[in-house]
């Protein structure tokens, strides 16, 4: 979807899915900012990101963390 084709109505609807009501007074400013983010994402589409690339996010179990042991069974 092109950033320029985003409507204020769509923005309002998207915000409602997040439990937030966007007032008319702020719609233009939020729309402009949202379009800027979409344009940035569009530029990133040109990057040579491999199909196997994983995101740079850490989820791990740290060594030595205090694990809670299950109670001993009788």
């Amino acid at each position: 979807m092109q950033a320029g084709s985003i409507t204020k109505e769509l923005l309002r609807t998207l915000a409602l899915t997040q439990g937030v009501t966007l007032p008319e007074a702020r719609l233009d400013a939020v729309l402009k900012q949202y379009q800027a983010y979409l344009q940035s994402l569009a530029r990133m589409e040109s990057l040579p990101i491999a199909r196997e690339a994983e995101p740079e996010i850490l989820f791990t179990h740290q060594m030595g963390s205090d694990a809670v042991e299950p109670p001993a069974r009788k």
Partner: protein
Amino acid sequence: MTSRREFLQYSASAVAAMALPQTTPSPGQDLLPLTVAEAGRRIASKQLSPVELTRQMLARIEALNPKTGALITVAADQAMDAARTAEREIMQGKYRGPMHGIPFGAKDTYYTQGIRTTAGSYVLRDHYPTFDCTIVKKLKEAGGILIGKTNLPEFSFGGVTPGCHNPWDLTRNSGGSSGGSGSALAASMLIAATGGDTSGSIRNPSSTNGVVGFKPTFGLVSRYGVVPISWTLDHLGPMARTVEDVAIMLKIIAGPDPMDQFSARVAPQDYPQQLKRSIRGLRVGVLSQSEMKGFHPDTQKAFMDAAKVLEGQGAQIKEVTFTENTHIAAESHGIIRICEAATYHRQYLRKQEAEYRHIWSNDPNDSNTRITVEAGMLLTSAQYLRAQQARKLFMQEFYKIYNTLDVFLDPTMPSPADVPAPNAEGYRNWFDLNGFPAVSIPCGFSTNPRGLPIGLQISAKPFQDSLVLAVANAFETATEWHKRRPAI
């Protein structure tokens, strides 16, 4: 053992006697041109009382805060109590180290037990944390005296701090988002402060106010108990007027923290002790001129001169340019930042959206933070994760460059305080995105407009924080920029 009377007798004259050279005298108050290291030595030898130092600092804050707007909250009673405790301990021989008896300011995102923590926003106007963040806890355990909370833009969003003025020219802003810390240090209202850095917010105000600010390797310093912008981009670190002071504070605040899931299991080093290593033979990359389009001419000149200083000390200089892919991948910073921030702000946007504005603002429509996070909230998880994939590519590109270098230099800011540089791309964000350690130190002053500080950014690979500080120290030792003081 020195009596309390003797302790105080020495103190008042000791403070006045420690005047460092400066361009013009400050009006009205005794000068506090101290550094943490100098004050620490005097306190350790009982020539300076923490009570007298704190009292003088509070007096200076009272005199200058109306002009600078650097502090949101001053905790005078708590600070004096802590100072009296520190004095008693030191007189009993229970000396804790170089931070004992030293007042410090904390950016108002840092949770401070019983002391209001607003994050610069009306949303948190009545927020009184029930615990200290890890950094404040460590500084207090080292004997530091929390004296106040420094100003920042609302929820740290932005490079300009509302109501906060630059001591070098009070008509100009102090930068941000740790603008209050930067301004207070430059004005000698504080000798030690803390900051937060997600998009350059320790280094921006450090450069803008002519002080030293250090963003450590991601994970070296705990983020626990600090109002976040973005969990995987936030860094916290020390600010002061010299590299040695920053090293002293870093040694105290660095180290693993089980309360911070991103905390690195790396023991802190003796950063002050490692400052004096030689930089002879170091491979130093410098940002090429082609990457400085739109940078102010004074900034470019100060930067080139700074590189020559290090070359004169034996560093091997080589120019660095970045690939187009690196520039594009760096945009992932903005997406990651706003998606994570929007997730944090959901709790306020759903129930307190009408309260967004700076803590000092009366205008309910005055919140760029709210607009930004509302827009970020509309991005999808797939878009966020795409940016995190781009981040991985960015890291790979960066390691290719840094594997041929020991340190990298660039100007911290494209231009001095409030001087427009509309088409210039600064590189501060990049070091939040890759988590590499980076410092900003004073490296000159502008000529047009006259007299505004310019900062040099030095960075290295992860966990080479001591190398960054050693190179910064080598530059500082060979120059006098850090000794200048504004006429305020």
